[in-house]
Each structure stands twice: as C-alpha cells, then as structure tokens.
C-alpha cells in the first residue's frame, strides 16, 4: 500500500466538498418550497418586467464590453507583438497595471472624473467652453460599458499577444514569397491564425463583464438600472429573498458555462496557430510614419485606464475637498489619519483582508499544488474529474457563489455565516481555477523522470515530492500564491453578500464609504489596495523572472 494515497484522496475530497455544496444548494433552493418541489421561483423571476430588464441590461453591457475589449486589445496586441512601436515595455507594463486594477476602483475614479455635476472632466469642459451642460455622463449604459471595457481589454490583449508571439515570421514570409502582398498576408495568414484567440478573447471579456458586481453597482444603480449581479445582491436586502436569488443565479450560471464551453472548443483547435512557433524568428514590422500616432493612441487609452483614474484618486486622497483644485489650502493628510485611525471599520477590515489573503493564498496554493500534482502524475482514479472540478468555479460568478455559500453555511452542520471562514471558503473556491492553472503549468515543467530517478534510487513518493519536486516547483508555487493573494485582496462580488459587521474586508469598506459619499477615504483605501497589489506583482515577477502575463522578456 502506497502511504501517499491518503494525501491525494484527502485533497480530492476537499475539492469535491468545496464545489458541490454551494452549487447543490443553489439548485435545490431554487426549486423547493414549503409545499415541495416547485418552479414558482423561476416563474416569478422571469415574469417580473423589472427583472427581465436587468437580464437584458446585462446582455447589452456584456456584449458591448466584449466588442470594445477586442477593438482595444487586438490592435494593441499586434502593435506590441509584431511592430517596431516605441515604448513597448512601458505599454506592456501599463496594460498589466490595468489588468490588476480592481475594476470597482476604476469605476469610483471615473465617478470623480466624469460625474455629470462635479466630475473634473466636465468642470474642465464647462470652464473651457462656457457651456452649462456636462460633456459626458458616466452614470449611463455607455459610461458603464466604457469603464468596464478599459479594465477588461487586457484579457483580450494577453490572449492575442501570446498567440501572435507564437506565429513565426516564416509563415508570413512563406506567403509573401509566393506573391501575396502585405494586406493579403495579413488577411489570409495572420488573421485566420489569431481568429480563435480573438473570438475566445471576446468570450473571456464577456464572461468578465457578466460576473462583475462593483462597476454596475457604482455606475448603474445611480443611473436607475440593474444588472443581474446587482439584482441578486438586492435580493439580500431585508427581508432576504434567498430562493429568488437562487433562481436568478441559474441563468447566469448557465450562460457562463455555455460561453466557456464555446471558448474551450475554439481553443481546443488552437493547435495549428502554434505550429512552427518554436524557434521561428519574428521580425518587427516597420510602422514608418505611423509609429508616433500609434504610440499616442495606445497612451491615450492607457491614460483613461491608469493615468487619469490614479491621478484623481491621488488628488482625492490628498485634498480636503476632492472636487476643488489642488492648492496649498486644499492639501491635507487628514484623509489618511481619518481612514486608518478614526474610521471605525478600517483597521479590522485591513486585518481581515490581510488575514484572509495570506490564509487563502497559502491553503489555496497548497491545495492547487496537490491537485495539480495528482492530475499531472495520474496518481488516483478519476484524476480527470479533479481537473474539471478545480477549473469549474470559472463558471461561477462571485455573486452566485456567494448565494450558494450563504445557503450552504447558514444552516447546520456548518454554521460559518458571520465568521471569516465563510469568506475564506468563498475565496478558496473562487481562486481555485487560477491557482490550479498556475500549479498545473508548474508541474508540467517538472519532467516526471526527475521523480522516477529519485524513486529507483530508494526514495519513497512523499520523500521525492519533498526533496526533488518541491524545490523545482518552488518558484511556480510562489507565483501561484501571489496570484491568489492579488485575487483575494480585491474581491468584492462575493464579499458584499457574505460579510457581516465583524467580518468586513477593505473592498466592502470602500463600498460602504461610497454610500456615505466619503471620497477621500475611498481614495486612500483604494491606493492602499493598489500598493499591496503592485507590491505582490513585483515580488512575483522577481520570483518568476518574467512578465506574469505570459511572455518572456
């Protein structure tokens, strides 16, 4: 009997419980009532015109976000991967920054920038033109789409840039030597090869938009409309209508599952995009006169995603009245002292966030590593199921997961609601796909013969795991830890449903402050969150020795 087997089985069981409980409860509660099984909740949910409107709003928003993300991400991917565009390192760095910026912080920043009355851009416009109207109003559907898209396009960018990096110039030159002109080469060779990446990037962006809670809550609610996620959240307002939330979660769950299936199909056939990718040199296409206009375009977009929002957050953090010009009179550190020492909720929220971040990242990375090891080395029967389960939470939007966990853990035997544990469980579940993919890639890089060599020379499996595999996988696992940590400290959509006054986290406090209209402290906490995020990113890049979006420098 192999002594290591209990370890693998325990990890597998933990995963199954983690996944099965919340989803099972959602399904069950959505069809149950005091008088037995029923479809009444579904009927109520889908016949209510207001809820139908929320569904439709979500579809509209997600679709346009997907389209806008492709329109922004694809050209930038081509420019940075294949041309002699100047400042590529800077641009990649900024795209990465926009990738890790919590979207709800961006939304806050844009409220300060483009709110119809006090928004700085509108004030500037009024000063310059003398008009009385606002130039832009962020509290609209197009405003919401814009703010979501500028933080979602990096998903498309990464997907396409990594695919383009695999296409050797030879493939294009082969077409050129046969007589195809530059446009023809692009249309007949390059584009078809990246088409699957573009489509699946579109789907990825749509998925992100579907699952988002923060930005719609900040921008759509004041504008007077709901999306699915904000609607589910409002079902939890007193008195909570859990069964409605469950019934309303199911279509969101099905939509994500369906889209992911489509994306998997597309990527499954991606193989041909990388044929001949190894070793093939890539030559930069000269942009000529277009170099600087192209750079200007990229920077303008990144100004919307990074410079302007970060700038306005910094300004708000340092000023007494955020909407007033930053003069000596207006300058203050009072927001910092208020936020960290006077506002009652902050200190415990910071502690909670750090505690949850470290705990989730440690347990999550450990569990992900064990599971990835089991599936890579095929240690137990049913290892394929484990891989599926570990990746399954991708289809569960944070809000839906929270509904499931709320139902599952507000009743015996596991009364976790009201403790940090329920958030911990939510985060571990939500971050499992990211952690698992990272750990999986890590173990794929450790040749199994390295372990076999240890075995045949006399070391048992656990010993080999400790002495050979672990040191070789270390940097990959640390990176996994960082990925999970970043995901946890910015988490809002599950936390907003599962928190209780004693278990607030930073993102929830920011959300509360918004209700009170406290922009200065929001900015302080936002910057604090960004600092933690970027600190972790830097650490991770040093460990990995590469840009974490996938490309080697």
């Amino acid at each position, binding site marked *: 009997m192999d002594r290591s087997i209990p370890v693998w089985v325990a990890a597998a069981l933990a995963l199954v419980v983690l996944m099965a409980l919340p989803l099972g409860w959602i399904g069950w509660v959505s069809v149950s009532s005091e008088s037995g099984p029923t479809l009444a909740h579904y009927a109520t949910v889908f016949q209510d015109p207001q809820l139908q409107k929320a569904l439709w709003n979500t579809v509209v928003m997600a679709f346009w976000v997907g389209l806008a993300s492709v329109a922004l991400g694809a050209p930038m991917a081509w420019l940075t991967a294949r041309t002699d565009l100047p400042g590529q390192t800077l641009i990649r760095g900024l795209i990465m920054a926009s990738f890790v910026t919590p979207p709800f912080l961006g939304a806050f920043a844009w409220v300060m920038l483009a709110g119809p009355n006090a928004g700085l851009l509108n004030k500037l416009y009024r000063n310059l033109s003398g008009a009385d109207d606002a130039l832009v109003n962020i509290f609209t559907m197009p405003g919401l789409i814009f703010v979501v898209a500028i933080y979602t396009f990096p998903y498309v960018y990464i997907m396409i840039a990594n695919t383009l990096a695999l296409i050797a110039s030879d493939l294009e030159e082969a077409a050129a030597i046969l007589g195809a002109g530059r446009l023809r080469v692009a249309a007949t060779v390059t584009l078809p090869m990246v088409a699957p990446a573009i489509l699946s990037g579109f789907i990825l962006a749509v998925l992100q938009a579907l699952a988002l809670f923060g930005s719609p809550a900040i921008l759509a609610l004041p504008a007077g409309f709901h999306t699915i996620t904000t609607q589910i959240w409002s079902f939890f307002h007193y008195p909570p209508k859990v069964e409605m939330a469950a019934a309303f979660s199911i279509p969101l769950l099905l939509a994500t599952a369906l889209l992911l299936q489509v994306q998997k199909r597309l990527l499954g056939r991606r193989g041909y995009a990388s044929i001949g990718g190894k070793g093939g040199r890539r030559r930069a296409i000269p942009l000529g006169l277009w170099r600087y206009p192209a750079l200007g375009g990229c920077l303008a977009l990144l100004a919307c995603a990074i410079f302007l929002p970060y700038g306005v957050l910094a300004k708000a953090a340092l000023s007494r009245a955020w909407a007033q010009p930053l003069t000596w009179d207006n300058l203050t550190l009072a927001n910092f002292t208020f936020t960290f020492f006077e506002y009652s909720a902050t200190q415990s929220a910071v502690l909670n966030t750090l505690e949850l971040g470290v705990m989730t990242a440690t347990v999550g990375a450990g569990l992900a590593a064990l599971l990835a090891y089991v599936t890579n080395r095929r240690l137990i029967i049913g290892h394929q199921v484990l891989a599926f389960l570990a990746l399954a939470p991708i289809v569960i939007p944070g809000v839906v997961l929270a509904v499931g966990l709320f139902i599952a853990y507000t009743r015996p035997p596991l009364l976790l609601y009201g403790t940090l544990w329920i958030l911990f469980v939510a985060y571990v579940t939500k971050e499992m796909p990211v952690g698992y993919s990272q750990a999986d890639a890590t173990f794929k890089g450790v040749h199994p*013969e390295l372990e076999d060599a240890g075995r*045949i*020379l*006399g070391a048992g499996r656990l010993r080999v795991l400790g002495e050979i595999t672990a040191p070789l996988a270390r940097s990959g696992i640390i990176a996994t830890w960082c990925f999970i940590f970043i995901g946890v400290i910015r988490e809002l959509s599950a936390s907003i449903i599962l928190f209780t006054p004693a278990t607030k986290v930073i993102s929830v406090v920011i959300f509360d402050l918004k209700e009170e209209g406290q922009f200065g402290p929001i900015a302080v906490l936002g910057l604090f969150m960004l600092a933690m995020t970027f600190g972790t990113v830097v650490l991770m890049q040093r460990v990995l020795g590469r840009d974490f979006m996938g490309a080697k420098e």
Partner: protein
Amino acid sequence: MPGVIVKELTKRYGEVAAVEGLSLEVKPRELVALLGPSGCGKTTTLRVVAGFLRPEAGEIWVGDRCLSSPSAVVPPERRRMAMIFQSYALWPHMTVAQNVAYGLRFKQEVSRAERERRVREILKVVHLEGFESRYPGELSGGQQQRVAVARSLVVEPEILLLDEPLSNLDANLREEMRFEIRRLHEAFGITTLYVTHDQAEAMVISDRIAVLYRGRLVQIGTAHQLFEQPRTRFVADFIGKTNLIDGVAAAPDRVARGGLSLRVASASLKPGAAVTVSIRPHEIALAPASSPRTPGEGVNVLRGTVQRTSYLGDAIDYQVQVDGSDVVLRVAGPPPAAVRAGQEVTLTLPAAACVPLTDSD
C-alpha cells in the same frame, strides 16, 4: 548477482496492449538490449521491470524475489535497481556530488565519510574528477550523461536499467559512449537491461539482443545470430540491410517467385507454403556478364541489368533488375564500380546466405 526473469508480461493502456505475453530471461551479469522501433513496447517493459507500472498479467522476478505481479508491485525504491533515463533526469537544484550521493543516503550501512569516498571514486571512474560542486546546467551533454551513469553505478544496484541513454547525444559522442558503457559493464558486471531503437548501438553494447515488435518478443539472440539467422521478416529487415523476396516453397530447399528459383539454406520447407527469402546485399557477388563464371555447388547464379549505381565511399550500392522477374536486388560491392548503369551482370548468391523466413511477421 541475480538475473531478471520476465514471465508472460502483459501491460495495457486502456484497450491497447503495449506489451503482450512477453517472456524474457536476463542471466546474471548479462547485458540484454531491448531493441525495436518506437511503440514496440520496449520502454513499457523496462518501466514495468522498474516498478513504475503495474502489469495486467505476468510477473517480474529478480533472483528469488517476485517484484511485480498484477496483485502486488514492490515500489521502485525497494527494488535495489538503478536506472539511467533518456533525459538523464539529473536534478538541476543539486550539485554533481549531491546528485551522485542521493541514492547512497538511503543505505544505512554507508556512513557519511564512506559516502563521500564512494562518490569521489565513481566520479573518477567516469572521468569527472573535479566536477563535484558543479550544477548539471553547467555541464555538457556528454558530461551530464556521465553523471547519470555515476549516480546509478555508485549505489551498486542488483539490476541496472537504461532507457535510450544515448539518444540525446550527437553522433560522435554517441559512438564513444557505446564503448564506455560496454567497458563499465565489463568492469562492474551488473545485470543490465538496455532499451534502444538503434540496432548498431544494441550490437556494440549487448551480450544478447531481444527484438520487440508490436508488444511481442520476436527473437532473442546474439547480434551474430540475429544477423545471420533472422527468424522473421521484421528481424531481417530491422537488423542491417537486406533484400526480401516473397515467394512460394517449390521444394524442401527451393523457393520460387515467377521465373526466379532460389536454393536456400534449409532443406525442410513445406512445398506450397509462402516463404520470404532474405539475402544480405554484401553476400551477393556481382560481375560483368561477359566475364567467365564458375558456377559451383550450392550457389544460385542469376542474370540481371544494373539500374543504378551509387557511390557510398566505402562501398558501391548497385540496384540490379533480375532478368525475367519483377525482383530488384540491392548489391553491395567494393569500390571502384565494376559496372555502370544499363550493363548486363551476373549475380552469384550462395544458398547458405539465402535465409528462408517462414514466420508471418
């Protein structure tokens, strides 16, 4: 020093049998090569012997210990074996000395000082003195190979397993390492199973060669036996170059194909049975048709036309169309070329060199 006995081994991956009913005996101190094309089951066999895979049927015995059976598999770490891998599998985070010393750490009877002494000694044997504190990434391919060899030999295993250990080396180094491995085998006398797809490598290194094809053992013997007396079409074709002529037994010692009739090195064929005849190119003598010939006993004499000659440096390769037949024979002759393309020639085939193959494979 025990030997290895593989009994009726079967290993399946799903529905596909990678190895089927394979039996094999490696005698004590013998080096047997498992030779075959990719997918023939040789590596699978080796990995079952090593204990990494559980067989569906059959047993692995070393001396009086049954190490593998469908019901019980002794884990690799308790088999007293060592293995050299195709990728070398040197641990990149350990120095050469740490790599080599690894297996000794699990031997209680070896003290720390003794361990260090043995590591130094074995590194001397593989000509790597002074490399103790290097990391594998700092070594050349050949040096890495030597570390892998040292790491396996230092534990004084009962059985040594090698999985295509030379396939990652360039041609010159590969040839050098063949002799090196043979030298080490003769010095240490460890019972060894050696997997390779390279017939020349198998012939240089091994005492006996087991030819595997589609998961089955087709023939086992010394290099000489396999070359001179292949039992199947596959063996004849895989070991060295050969001409294969499919025909029918016309008499106990005669095989016919169309207008062609050959005396073969057997007197027990069943007339009417399908027989393939194998003739090595260098066994055939070629002369211009005009030169005087002296047909003797036990010799087949054929006439033909040279279709093409190729100059190979140390030999000339002729393609000869046999008159009145669809058979084209490859003939190897010493340079300079005796004839040019288009010329009529006489071919002399000793009956003893015409090996009849009756197995279907």
